[in-house]
């Protein structure tokens, strides 16, 4: 029974990712778009679970579904939305765009489906301990640099949004 469960879950998550992602691009209601983006991120967390990366799935839910979606929703509510829709969508460049998309997309599709290795979930214990070991020994310096980057982004965001008091 579990043999069929894994492809079934994969299809559910794939439809969630591709369908909700397409709706983010095609819809014109900004709040629905933001919530569908959250659905895309949640389905992506399910994909990470299927790949056996539980810690990454947890980070995905915490950071993307939690923090980034809320930030985007704040951005939506602080601005007046008068989206006039597709800027360049129905112009005469459409045949060119379709041709270029085919030229890029067909090789990418062939390349993607050329990987036929089955993905089996990791045997035991999850990925938290190897991930933490790798992150805090081999990649300790980039980790610290990332913390400095986050601090710089925090200060920069505050400075950008702060009202002038003069």
């Amino acid at each position, binding site marked *: 029974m579990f043999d069929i469960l894994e492809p079934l879950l994969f299809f559910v998550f794939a439809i969630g*990712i591709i369908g909700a992602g397409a709706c983010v691009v095609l819809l014109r209601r900004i709040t629905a778009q933001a919530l569908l983006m959250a659905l895309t991120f949640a389905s992506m967390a399910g994909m990470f679970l299927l790949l056996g990366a539980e810690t990454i799935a947890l980070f995905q839910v915490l950071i993307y579904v939690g923090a980034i979606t809320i930030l985007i929703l704040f951005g939506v509510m602080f601005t007046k939305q008068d989206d006039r829709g597709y800027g360049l969508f129905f112009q005469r460049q459409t045949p060119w765009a379709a041709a270029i998309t085919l030229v890029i997309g067909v090789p990418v599709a062939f390349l993607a489906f050329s990987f036929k290795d089955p993905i089996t979930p990791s045997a035991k214990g999850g990925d938290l301990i190897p991930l933490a070991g790798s992150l805090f020994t081999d990649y300790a310096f980039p980790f610290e640099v990332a913390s400095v980057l986050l601090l710089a982004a925090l200060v920069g965001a505050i400075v950008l949004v702060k009202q002038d008091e003069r």
Partner: protein
Amino acid sequence: MTVPLGAFIAVSAGLFFIGAAGVLVRRNAVVILMCVELMLNASNLALVAFSRRAGQLGAGNPLDQRGSVFVVFVFVIAAAEVAVGLAIILAAYRNRPTVNVDEIRGMKG
């Protein structure tokens, strides 16, 4: 019956295409930011899938989590990017109340 690696990569490529199309087609700055997030997330899926394969093929340590470490850094970059991006959008909005990127020409000479 397991899911092949190519299916994950195909989903990743599809989401990346969708995000790229959204960045090019939409004119709303907040929607463009959302589509950039979609593209970053698609790259995360490819990184985790290939990392899992490298661990299975015995290319080095099976406990090697390099792909997942990169995904963690991508999370950091994405969080910083969306915070600074929204701050820039709000600052531009205060200057001129629109989020349409065609109408924001303040830095054009």
